[in-house]
Each structure stands twice: as structure tokens, then as C-alpha cells.
């Protein structure tokens, strides 16, 4: 390799390592100085800096137009990558973008369209058309240290205590009406 190429590689390597370190310790210089795609590849080191206070998971419910009620909808058939853990794309979409209306509306459209296509079993009968979704955050407190624990198993949403769930998103009426008809009006709470 030519000397100029070697020097260029060394500068690139040094920039990467300095950026990785600064980003890891929480310094904002890489975010300000570098293009976002470049900085993205440096966001790797700050792993698990905080204690978890709850075990969190995102769930979905569908609004069944004919029955006028919410029922849990399992999103995993529509997000098949890593279906059973928090690396699942549905979980990740909500972790990153739960405050981003564009993404929530896109998720809403996607889940409604996928369920109504009736190609998979998702907990709501295939012949029941849904008009909207409700995204629910489940957060279960971490047991005290030393407590005997059981292997985590997926529980139905209805099994969680009320204070362990929080609705993050509900399909607005303006989006629901064209799908279910104007007489359909979701109640505020899960029956």
C-alpha cells in the first residue's frame, strides 16, 4: 500500500476510535461534527449503563369493527424476525419511535392491513375485520434480589394488572371511521 493510503487509513482509524470513545462516554462532539450515518457506526459502546426498574414489552390490540371492542392482537406473525424477544422489529419500532406520530400511524396502517388480509393467525379471528389498533406498554416491576424467579413466559395482555399497562397509542377516530364506518366509537378502556 502506498504511504499516502496508509496515512489516510490511520487518520480514518483514529477518527473512528476517538468518535467511538467520545460517543460512548456521552460526549456530543461526534454527533455535532460527523454526518449522521458515520456517527451511527460509532454508537456502540454505551451498553446497559442503567439499572432496569421494570421489564418492559409492547403489545397490540385490534378494534373489531363488528363487535365494537378491543381484543389483543399478536403482532409477531407480521414481524417475524426474532419474534420472542426484545430484538423483534415491532418492539424496536416502539422503543425508538413511540413519540413519532408518523411511525405510529404507519404501524397502525400496517397492522390493520396485515390482519385484514387474513393470512396469519394473530389472536383475532381472521373473519373479524379490525379498524384500528391500540399499542400498550407493559411494564412489570423487577423482583427483589434473591427472590426465586421463574422462566419468563408470554402472558395474555388481560392477565396483567391495570397499573402494569399503559396505552401509548390509539387509532384516532378520523382514521377509524373510513375503516369501520362512522358509528364505530372505541371505548376508552379495555373491556
Amino acid at each position, binding site marked *: 500500500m502506498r504511504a499516502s493510503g496508509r496515512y489516510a487509513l490511520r487518520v480514518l482509524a483514529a477518527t473512528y476510535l476517538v468518535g467511538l470513545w467520545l*460517543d460512548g462516554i456521552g460526549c456530543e462532539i461526534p454527533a455535532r461534527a460527523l454526518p449522521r*450515518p458515520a456517527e451511527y457506526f460509532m454508537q456502540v459502546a454505551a451498553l446497559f449503563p442503567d439499572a432496569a426498574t421494570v421489564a418492559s414489552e409492547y403489545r397490540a390490540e385490534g378494534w373489531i369493527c363488528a363487535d365494537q371492542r378491543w381484543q389483543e392482537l399478536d403482532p409477531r406473525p407480521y414481524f417475524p424476525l426474532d419474534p420472542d*424477544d426484545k430484538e423483534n*422489529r415491532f418492539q424496536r419500532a416502539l422503543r*425508538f419511535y413511540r413519540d413519532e406520530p408518523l*411511525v405510529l400511524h404507519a404501524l397502525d396502517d400496517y397492522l390493520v392491513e396485515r390482519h385484514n388480509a387474513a393470512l396469519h393467525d394473530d389472536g383475532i379471528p381472521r373473519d373479524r375485520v379490525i379498524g384500528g389498533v391500540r399499542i400498550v406498554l407493559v411494564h412489570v416491576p423487577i423482583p427483589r434480589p*434473591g427472590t426465586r*424467579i421463574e422462566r419468563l413466559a408470554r402472558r395474555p395482555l388481560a392477565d396483567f394488572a391495570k397499573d402494569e399497562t399503559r396505552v401509548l397509542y390509539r387509532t384516532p377516530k378520523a382514521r377509524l371511521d373510513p375503516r369501520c364506518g362512522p358509528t364505530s366509537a372505541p371505548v376508552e378502556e379495555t373491556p
Partner: protein
Amino acid sequence: MSRFLQRFLQRASVWMAPPMPVVRLEIVRIFAPLAVIGFMSGRLVHADEWIGDAGFRVPHLAQNPNQPLYMPPLPSSLAWVVVGVMVLAGLAVSLGFRTRASVLIFAATLAFVALSDRLAAFTVSKISPVIMLAVAAGPAGSRLGVDAWLRRRQGEPAAAAIAPLGSIRFLQLFLVTFYSASGIAKAGGDWLTTPFVLWSHLHDTYQTGFTVLLANATPSFLWTPLQYSVLVFEGFAPLWFGLRYTRLVALVFGLGMHAMIGLMFGPVIWFALLMMTLLVACFLPERWLAPPPGKATARPTQPGDATA
């Protein structure tokens, strides 16, 4: 240029690419792509849902820091082609076949998928293109693998067993930089103030059967010293790996830590294997890797060189 500056630059140049056994780079070249493909395997089988247009796509967000670059989904057929190229290139790297070209193609596909889908991108997704570029910059495939075997069959002399390896120096620095930043981030988070951080991470969907077994078998008072030992290892990694006398202990601790991470946090197993590969390749004692006497074409100028 003064003589002092010349000597400094010369020493810096040797430090940045010290003579080392090429087998260090071959270890990375053989095992890192396998760990990366293992990590990608769950995604590869759903290529059309992952980077194609068959699954959910996050729409273009102009100002969201969690979307570094918007890339529209690929047509499903093209998504399958991309993952096919990725797997073939990764396997070719591991086998040492057309090594440099394969590494560059593999790195390009890895960078593409990391940017294409933020939702399925993790630490492995982001560091693997960089690791592969480091492999491409060195004499990977020159000693072991298909390329080396073909050259031997054509009667060419064996490549040097010991050569200046800037790639390995980079990976050594990468590891200590990574650990150091990670340790400082932990110290700035809850690891110094909350005694049960490790315990708190055993209860979500990363949990494995081994996690439950260990959580129930370990006395609760042990979690805090374990937590602090990880913090001290990571925060002071430049010291542990920089000093010759602590390097082997640091290597064993690092391997043990990643083994536990892999066993206790199911999907993180591939990250653990990738980091263990780098640790072994970068910090295994020189005497365990040096070729038999008379086989090397050059000797290291600094025995036990790997002062990161």
C-alpha cells in the same frame, strides 16, 4: 526535519504496525464472519421482511436521530440477492477464498443492511463492517485458507508468518477503546450507585434457562461484587491490556465475561462470540501463536508487542 522528530515518527510507525504472527489476523478472518453470519441468520431467512418491501418499514423521518439515513426498501427479489451475496462473501472470507475482494464485498453488504434497517441493527451490525475493513487492510488469507493453499500448489513460497500488522493493532485499540467507553458510560449511569444492576437485567426477554438457573443459585450478595468487577475491568481496560503482566488475566476475564453474557442473554450470544474472537486474536500470548523456529521470515522487533 529534526532527528528527534524522525525517530519519533519511525517509532510511531512501528508501534502502529508492529511485527506480529499473521495467524492473529487469520483468527479474525476465519471466525469473525461466522459469528456475524450467525447473528444475521435470523434476519437472513426473512430478507424480504428485513430489507425488502414485504415487511414494515419506518417512514422517512427528517429530523429523528434514531434514523441516521433513510433508505427505501428493496424489491423483495433484490433483498434476497443482497443477503445471498452477503452469505457467500462471508463464507468466502472465512474460507480465505479471494480474500480481499470477499472481505470488501462482505463489509459493503454489512454496512448496507445496518443502515437500511435501524430496527434490526445492533452493536454487531455496526462494528462488523469496521472489523471487516480492518481484515481487508492486512494480509488476511496469506497464511491459511483456500488462497494460501492455491498459492502453495502453484509452487509459490509461503507468505511471511510474521509481518507488520496495523490491522491487529487497530483491533487491539478498538477493544480497549470500546471497553473503556463502556465502563465510563456505566460509571456515569447506575453502576456506581445501584448495587443490583446486573440482577435488574435478568428479567426481560433476553432471559435464558441458564439465566434463571444462575439467578436462583447465586446468593444475592454476589451480584454487587460481580457488577463492580465488570466495571473495573471495562473502565480500566487500557491498563489491563496495556500492561504485559495483567494482559493474560484480562484476556481470561474478558472471555469469561463474554461467555456469561452469551449464556445469560440469549440473542447476545453472537456479539459475545465476535468479541471473544477479537480478544483471542488480539491478546493471546505471542509465544502461543509464534511459528516454530526457522519458519518465520521475520522476527518481532518487540517481543510481547501487543502494548495497546
